[in-house]
């Protein structure tokens, strides 16, 4: 049995940095299941080299199929590619059916590709925190590119842009008009927009609408948002898409934005982690569930109100915090 403890053993770290697939896989499991951040602290100094590309868009838009062809294109230049594909966790059972691999069979045996399917698990407010950690593991393992496919987008996934250097938003003619994409906030996070299933009717009309919608943004941003047409299943338009990603990367470099944006993202991450820790601490140590339960009857009968209870408890915590100093 090779199931050694990989928390921080030097030997495993060396293997991870060299890209040993079994160790990468086990390390991802470890960070996914453990709240202990020792491993992440150990690998962090070795990260920051991979270029992160986010692929997002509504369910069934062709995200996985596109990841497959984009990766194949990047492989031609001898890149090492890590892929994380997220599918939703069932809120009822806590289980998940992870099917993105079905579209990536071309990559299954490529030496320079590592694919990991992840379930969104109970993450509130965005891309699973663990997805970011998994991306860090892939980064440390020497990948040139990390591709992240989100679950079919809802409002919650917009922070894919918080992890990725280039965010590609995939739309399809069936996903309606550009107003719907705008409502979902999708277009705000896009660096590149792809209308996939270019073989279907309505594609050109959607592209026209999007071009119109983006004219304004173009002028402000200094980056010309490409709006591209692809047919992922026929490998059409992929060359253009990959070169648009390259251009965006070059633009980020040249303008100095890459560093600025990455610093901003790290800042956000720190905030997020502090909040996670404090939330966990509150739940475990501070907020007394039993006492709340006793009060709830009175709240239900309108003798107490939730606002007063919450602000009293919060005041108590803050006071005890300042007293300690």
């Amino acid at each position, binding site marked *: *049995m*090779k*199931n*050694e*403890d990989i*928390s921080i053993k030097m030997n495993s770290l060396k293997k991870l940095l060299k890209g040993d*697939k*079994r160790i*990468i*896989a*086990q390390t*991802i*499991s*470890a960070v996914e*299941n*453990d*709240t*202990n951040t*020792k491993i992440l602290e150990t690998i962090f100094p070795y990260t920051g080299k991979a270029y992160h590309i986010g692929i997002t868009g509504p369910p069934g838009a062709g995200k996985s199929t596109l990841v497959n062809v984009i990766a194949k294109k990047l492989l031609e230049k001898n890149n090492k590619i890590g892929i994380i594909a997220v599918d939703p966790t*069932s809120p*009822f*059972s*806590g*289980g*998940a*059916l*992870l*099917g993105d*691999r*079905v579209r990536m*069979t071309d990559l*299954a*045996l490529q030496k320079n590709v*590592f*694919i*990991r*399917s992840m*379930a969104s*698990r109970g993450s509130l407010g965005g891309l699973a925190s663990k997805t970011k950690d998994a991306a860090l593991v892939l980064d440390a393992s020497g990948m040139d590119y990390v591709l992240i496919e989100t679950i079919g987008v809802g409002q919650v996934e917009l922070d894919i842009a918080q992890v990725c250097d280039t965010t590609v938003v995939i739309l399809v003619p069936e996903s309606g008009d550009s107003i719907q994409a705008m409502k979902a906030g999708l277009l705000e996070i896009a660096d590149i927009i792809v209308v996939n299933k270019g073989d279907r009717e309505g594609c050109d009309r959607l592209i026209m609408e999007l071009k119109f919608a983006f004219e304004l943004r173009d002028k402000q941003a200094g980056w010309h948002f490409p709006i591209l047409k692809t047919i992922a299943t026929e490998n059409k338009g992929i060359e253009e898409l990959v070169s648009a990603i390259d251009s965006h990367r070059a633009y980020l470099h040249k303008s100095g934005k890459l560093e600025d944006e990455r610093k901003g993202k790290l800042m956000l991450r720190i905030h997020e982690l502090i909040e996670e820790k404090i939330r966990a601490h509150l739940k475990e140590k501070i907020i007394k569930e039993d006492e709340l339960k006793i009060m709830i009857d009175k709240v239900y009968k309108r003798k107490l109100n939730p606002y007063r209870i919450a602000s009293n408890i919060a005041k108590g915590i803050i006071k005890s915090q300042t007293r300690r100093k």
Partner: protein
Amino acid sequence: MDRKIRVIIGKPGLDGHDRGAKVVAAALRDAGMEVIYTGLHQTCESIVEAAIQEDVDIIGLSILSGAHMTIFPKVLNLLKKKRAEDIILTGGGIIPEEDMKKLEKKGVKKMFGPGTPTTEIVDWINENVRAKSKKTKTKKIKKKTGKNRS
């Protein structure tokens, strides 16, 4: 935190029916497991490679084509070669009783005959993965670091 059980459901070989595989996959999901589905016509190599990258506890193969006597041993072999024998191999399909016994002797942990209720498969997986992680857990503690994944 509870470590979720991860299972890969593979359809190696040529037969084009994955209804059974999908029914099992859905049942395992409904039992709270994370199920990786790889689609039709997979090679043994790609299933084993996926199992490793996905760090699954169990591989379940569905075979209706009659090629079970070559496919299961091949997968066992590949797992050994990749030093991933700790991944449990199981499966089912249209397979004669006799062959099931032979395969279990060769190292397939358990074969499920046609028409096995999915609840039976769920229970079996729960039991066996728990037994396995207990083993590795105690082993790890002995190996001085107190940390474990479950």
